[in-house]
């Protein structure tokens, strides 16, 4: 099987693009949750943040595709093309490559539904998009697992650092997502932000006012 490049270049390219894809995937998840949590506050910054999330995700897909192509064309490991989409078919390391295949399948599902999102019902798109929470750990496991063994990357200092960083980032993002309690945490630009807080208080109390009977001020709860 002739590859795109020489064997050793394929081998290194495959591993490099794999790690970059993992980093980009982690960044995508982080950006997605930062958008959800309204880290970007101003009008145009929110738009930019949304577009950056989308563009980084596409970049992650690009690097994943190169990662796959170099895996197919590499002569050192015999990986049939179909095994990259269907788990379990690879002769080499079937379990760990299989996990990679699962991860790619999930990524494709997320990408396709996102490209077609204006034609889908929100619930459909949302449920598939949540597969991202499955896609990332699968990709990580694939990376660690297929990187184990002689001559490969797991266990080396630099890869360990990468794994710790992306792992912490993902964990932090998921924590933020879970503690956000849905839309309750969303506070809009308060109307008072457009003017000084509150209204000027009364200089003298009106002659016969008393506190409004039986009306506590409650902050309306938004449903989740």
């Amino acid at each position: 099987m002739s590859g795109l490049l020489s064997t050793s270049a394929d081998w290194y390219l495959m591993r490099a693009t794999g790690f970059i894809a993992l980093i980009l995937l982690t960044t995508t998840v982080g950006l997605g949750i930062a958008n959800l949590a309204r880290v970007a506050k101003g009008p145009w910054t929110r738009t930019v943040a949304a577009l950056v999330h989308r563009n980084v995700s596409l970049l992650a897909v690009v690097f994943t595709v190169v990662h796959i192509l170099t895996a197919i064309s590499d002569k050192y490991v015999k990986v049939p093309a179909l095994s990259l989409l269907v788990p379990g078919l690879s002769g080499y390391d079937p379990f760990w490559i299989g996990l990679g295949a699962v991860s790619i399948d999930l990524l494709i599902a997320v990408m396709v539904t996102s490209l077609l999102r204006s034609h889908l019902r929100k619930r459909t798109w949302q449920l598939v998009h949540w597969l991202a929470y499955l896609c990332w750990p699968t990709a990580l496991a694939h990376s660690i697992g297929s990187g184990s063994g002689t001559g490969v990357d797991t266990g080396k200092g630099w890869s360990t650092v990468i794994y710790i960083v992306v792992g912490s980032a993902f964990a932090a993002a998921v924590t933020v997502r879970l503690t956000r309690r849905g839309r309750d945490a969303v506070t809009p630009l308060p109307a008072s932000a457009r003017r000084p807080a509150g209204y000027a208080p009364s200089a003298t109390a009106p002659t016969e006012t008393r506190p409004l009977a039986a009306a506590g001020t409650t902050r309306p709860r938004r449903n989740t």
Partner: protein
Amino acid sequence: MTRRGLRLDPIGCDGHGICADLLPERITLDDWGYPIVDPSPLSDDLIGHAERAVTNCPALALRLEKVLDAAAR
């Protein structure tokens, strides 16, 4: 002639406000950051921007629907 106009789902809308950035000709934000959507038919030069606004809404709360042009009524 059948044109299309924007429709907002007020329940799904989360007040991100990205739509107002992408189509200021038809969408402005109220005092709480939620969009006020002008539903009038869109001219050809705005349709592309409107489609971007629909696609980029994180809550998928915007839709393009067919509306009858005023002349056709």
